[in-house]
């Protein structure tokens, strides 16, 4: 039997309870990150199948594109890649010498040497997230030993870090998101700063830089590794403009990220030895060699 009117007080009461519940959940999620497991489970068991389905057409297009490429195109690409590989090998030769020299010099100074990082290739899924946030979704998740706070790089530089984790997928906050900041160092002068996102994928902002800081347009900025979240010495950006307004305490410094934040399709997940233990979900990942490229 369908009643003509809904029971008034019960709906109002329920609404009030749910509003309170929303606020509690928001505070718990935003302040203490208590609900990451809840979010992860919803992501894995309800949302991921949907995302997978949505991603299928673009996967299919990619597959047909690959299957229907002509032999000549493949050969051309092969030659191009071989040439690239050769160039990379040449610069690597120099690099390995430099690396050894660096290690020797560091030993002489009895400073600690840098330990190499593990990387894993991941792909960005063609799924739209909130257009007002600089986020992307990767096809690797907890199953692949990804952890929250893990750094993401592409072939050119630092892209961002993992903020949410599902079993087979993870959400990455890009360095250009307004809520993101990364500790950086200027390569030329060694000046330390923090690069904040601006919401524009072509722009980062270096804040709290005094007017007389040794900084020039074109300077390259690298991750400094301070804070322990990002591995040190990966390129982050290039200074594009420095404005020193009189009467202001700090200069306005804008940088352009070197990673192709809105164009890359393949990215790398980096494992390094983070000093901050509490961001680690598991200890050093136990992955077989063929997982890495």
């Amino acid at each position, binding site marked *: 039997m*369908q*009643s003509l009117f*809904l029971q008034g007080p019960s*709906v*109002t009461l*329920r*609404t009030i309870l*749910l*509003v309170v*519940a*929303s*606020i*509690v*959940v*928001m505070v*718990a*999620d*935003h302040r203490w990150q208590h*609900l990451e497991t*809840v*979010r992860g489970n*919803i*992501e894995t068991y*309800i*949302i991921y199948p*949907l*995302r997978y*389905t*949505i991603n299928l057409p*673009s996967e299919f297009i990619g597959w047909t594109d690959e299957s229907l490429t002509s032999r000549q195109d493949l050969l051309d690409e092969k030659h191009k890649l071989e040439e690239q590989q050769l160039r990379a090998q040449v610069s690597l030769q120099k690099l390995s010498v430099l690396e050894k020299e660096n290690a020797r010099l560091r030993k002489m100074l009895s400073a600690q040497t840098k330990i190499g990082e593990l990387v894993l290739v991941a792909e960005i899924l*063609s*799924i*739209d*997230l*909130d*257009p*007002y*946030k600089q*986020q992307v979704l990767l096809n690797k998740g907890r199953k692949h030993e990804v952890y929250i706070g893990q750094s993401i790089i592409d072939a050119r530089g630092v892209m961002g870090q993992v*903020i*949410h984790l599902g079993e087979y997928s993870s*959400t990455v906050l890009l360095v250009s998101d*307004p*809520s993101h900041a990364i500790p950086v160092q200027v390569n030329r002068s060694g000046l330390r700063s923090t690069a904040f996102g601006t*919401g524009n994928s072509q722009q980062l902002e270096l804040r709290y830089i005094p007017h007389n800081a040794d900084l020039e347009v074109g300077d390259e900025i690298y991750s400094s590794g301070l804070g322990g979240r990002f591995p040190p010495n990966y390129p982050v950006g290039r200074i594009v403009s420095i404005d020193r307004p009189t009467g202001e305490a700090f200069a306005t410094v804008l940088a352009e990220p070197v990673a192709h934040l*809105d164009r890359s399709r393949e990215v790398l997940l980096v494992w390094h030895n983070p000093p901050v233990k509490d961001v680690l979900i598991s200890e050093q990942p136990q992955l077989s060699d063929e997982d890495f490229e």
Partner: protein
Amino acid sequence: MMLAKDSIKVVVPTVIFALMLHMWPLPEWMAYGRPEFVTLVVMYWTLAMPERVGVTIAWCVGLLLDVTQGAILGQHALGLVIVTFIVQLEYQRIRVFSLVQQALVVFVLLLIKQVLVLWVYGLVGHAPDLSLYFLPSLIGAIIWPWVFLLLRNLRRKFSVSRGF
């Protein structure tokens, strides 16, 4: 408030489909105008059968929306609950409106939801650029008549509920 068996087979698929439309990859210039399909669908079902689809279901759907959007958990849920509550209070009046009048009401409701979401953005300190922010509400109101007719046809086809 539990969904009866016969309504599960229509309500759940439409909500899931709306969620998928929310995640569907669009070119960047279109992504800013993407209407809130999920809110429209939940609104329709509340309007059509308020005794079955109400604030509790709206809250759960809102949480799913939060996860799909990478938002703070509860951000969209709060907006959906408030909007559903208003529809539940006024459903008898909204039902007798013409489609154009309904679209106006829907526009106001979508605006309320977006303002609530914006308010949470502001509270956590990262208010987005407002120049195109309310465009999804406008587009949502414009497509409301089609959403309404489509869902009504679906509901009648599966004869989920009497009346309306």
